[in-house]
């Protein structure tokens, strides 16, 4: 059994880690200080937009996370558009017009992407149907397996559970 001292020290260690995690600054992606806008509200909007824009060189990273040159250029472009008074949607449309919908990490819901969006629901539905039939089959099997004791076994069983029999044995 661990001593009180070692328990105490591990508890302190855990608390220390928790505090570290809580106090750690949120990850700031690949954005460099010289790209940032002076206005924190505008900068926050730029960050929100860049989190949803795919870096076309690295492809599964957002431009907010990516160190690629192109990602940096696109981050600067987004900030320029914001400074010129574009709304978030206008900035996004601007990028989609040049790089296609592929540039969005969240594909928009359209006829062409319906299967993509619907697939999880369809899979859950298919799974539920499978589970339903599985359990129904299980119920049937136990019902069918019920009356298969032979007459001999039946007699033995009834003698075993009869109260008189129990008394005799004790």
């Amino acid at each position: 059994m661990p001593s009180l001292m070692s328990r105490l020290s591990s508890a302190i260690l855990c608390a220390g880690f928790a505090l570290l995690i809580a106090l750690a600054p949120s990850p700031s992606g690949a954005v460099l200080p010289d790209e940032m806008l002076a206005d924190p509200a505008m900068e926050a909007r730029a960050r929100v937009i860049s989190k949803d824009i795919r870096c076309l060189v690295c492809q599964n990273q957002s431009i907010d996370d990516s160190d690629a040159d192109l990602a940096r250029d696109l981050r600067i472009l987004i900030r320029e558009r914001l400074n010129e008074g574009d709304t978030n949607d206008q900035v996004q449309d601007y990028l989609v017009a040049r790089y296609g919908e592929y540039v969005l990490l969240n594909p928009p819901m359209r006829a062409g992407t319906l299967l993509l969006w619907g697939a999880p629901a369809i899979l859950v539905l298919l799974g539920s149907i499978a589970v339903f039939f599985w359990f129904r089959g299980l119920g049937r099997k136990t019902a069918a397996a019920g009356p298969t004791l032979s007459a001999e076994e039946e007699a033995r069983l009834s003698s075993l559970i009869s109260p008189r029999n129990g008394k005799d044995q004790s």
Partner: protein
Amino acid sequence: MKRILFLLPLGLFIIVAGYFAWQLLYGRDPRIIPSALIGNPVPETELPPLKDDKPGFGRADFGSPDAEKAPVLVNVFASWCGPCRAEHPFVTALAKQESIEVYGLNAKDNRQAALDWLRDLGDPYAKIGFDPQGKAVLDWGVYGYPETYLVNGRGEIVFKHVGPLYPDLIERELLPRIRALKGEG
């Protein structure tokens, strides 16, 4: 019936694996992103000249639906880009043999480095735009170097290739399109 159900996972696996194998062997390269600009007019961006004795280019240098011009090839290049060097002889040959004007778009480059590069390797371009900041290339939807765009007489981008040109690709993809455009005009 029971026996067939046991084979279901195997069947599913074969279907999925077959699909992956087919994509792997015959599918398109997922790194190549279809250009959003195909079928659209060239960007409005005005590009200043790289050289003193050769103009840059902008929207007015391409045709428009009202005033058609000859088709043009736009080749994005930079002196820092290795594959650009590799494709340069083919770009040069295209410009000479197919009598199609090739516009160069020099991107994110140092002017002197670009001039030296062209002096060493030859300059096949009819016009060269200079984009040291890499802003105009974003309007063209460039994401890799080099890239080559074929613009038809109405000023619309009809074809884009990401990466260096090579003889087989030129023969297969580019020449038929150039000849079709010339036949039209």
